[in-house]
């Protein structure tokens, strides 16, 4: 179950890998770019990617930039759910936005690994 509020920090465990999944909801289509301290890790569809071992990513910042394009003509809504696992606890949170005049919106989210 996802919470609407995404936390700024994510607590890691030294010897466990942190994984990330980005889900584009509302029947829309989107492409993400995931960066760790400015270095690109992955792009496009993000499904359970390995961000790194807890001790290696502690103190680093994970940034996810997603452009959502309107593919579902039945709604003007766009939402992105971020699922992080492998840390002290799994989190799932959702960001929501509506399309404006343009049929694309950008959503950004950062997590500080602690």
């Amino acid at each position, binding site marked *: 179950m*996802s919470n609407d509020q995404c936390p700024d920090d994510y607590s890691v465990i030294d010897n466990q890998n942190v994984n990330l999944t980005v889900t584009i909801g*509302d*029947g829309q289509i989107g*492409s993400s770019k995931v960066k760790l301290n400015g270095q690109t890790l992955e792009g*496009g*569809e993000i499904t359970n990617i390995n961000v790194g071992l807890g001790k290696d990513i502690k103190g680093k910042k994970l940034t996810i930039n997603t452009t959502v394009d309107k593919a579902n003509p039945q709604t*003007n809504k766009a939402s992105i759910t971020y699922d992080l696992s492998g840390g002290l606890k799994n989190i799932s949170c959702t960001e929501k936005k509506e399309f404006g005049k343009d*049929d694309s919106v950008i959503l950004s989210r950062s997590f500080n690994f602690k």
Partner: protein
Amino acid sequence: MNNFINKSIVTVFLIIILNALPLTGQTSIPLDSMKTPESPAFMLLGISPTNFAKPETPNAFAVNVLNGLSSKELIPQNFAIETAPYWWFYHPQLTFREYINPTICQSIQQNFSFSAATSKLSGTPGGSYLAGGIRTIICPGSFNTDNLDTLIKEYHVNSYKRDFYTNGVIPDITVKEFNLDSIIDNELKESRIYLSSDKYISEEETKQMLIEIEKIKNDYFKSGKKPKDSTEAVKMANELISQTADKEKLQNTLTEIRSINKKKTGFIMDFALAGAGFFEGDSVKNGEFSKWGLWITPTYCNENFDLLFILKFLNGKDTTGWKGSGNTGIRLLYTSEAFGISFETEGKFSSGRQPNFRYILNFNYDIGKNTYLTATFGKDFQGNIINGNGDLITLLGINFGLGNAPSVTSK
């Protein structure tokens, strides 16, 4: 040889046309008009409002209803509303793939819409008609998974390129000086991440993108444009892409993605139900339920073959009681690159009358340059005679690019 055959066919058809009955009357096939209506409440009242409310949130729905009720009359006049409650809310877990190829349960939910309308009751003492209806798609058909994967991959490639230009070029043209080499190095690294994951971009494409980025940089420095924010940067990046060798690729992919619902195959079934009543003198005590209708449109289609059933039933009350009438229709359609052939039959049934049928065989042959030879033969409804005194339908003609070969779509 093919040319000769084409010319021969044209000649034969032209001779037939010269000897055929005058090409008057209708040539369109009315079966489509009986398909499940988008707004069954409007259909039941026989209205087609051009400007009706389509609220997208519960609040907007409430405001529209309250606005309607705040008029001086008991029942608001010329009120028309259509809404899809499922889309009032966010659905963060509904991915594009699930939206395009939904389960039956998901399809019913996401395609469910409600419509309501009022119209004036003619005569004295007058009053109002009020109708409400629902519509949904029970069986959604499916979009070929391989084609969907290809399309989504294409989207990611083009979206990646947009992102590539956005992050690689736009932020740097906001300052007067920037180091192109460092941008290229950085973007090349990022491209290699894509390459290493072997997901989207080929090495050749990456090289091509790097050539384009240099061209774009030069053009943009000359133009002096600067984006205000990231949204504008994406917009500018889209403009950039349209100026490059990837012209309109992203937009074309998105257009194709948005029209997927029209290219579905398999079993598709639409359903609609509506009811109407009138309030004589706009008085509640004079209110009476007077009409209801049911539409079911099952379709089976694959690449070349379509089978369409239409079931429509209307039941209306008059001074002598309830009277039902129904229409059923079947259309079989086969299309290939060169020709399309369809057979359709439609039956009308109503209380106290003999069933009335029509049968139509339609043939279209593509003679090139979007020009079709068309031929229609069949038997019309009794009492609906097109040519002469009989019920025989014979229509022959040439369609000069005014339409396409016959097709059946789910909507």
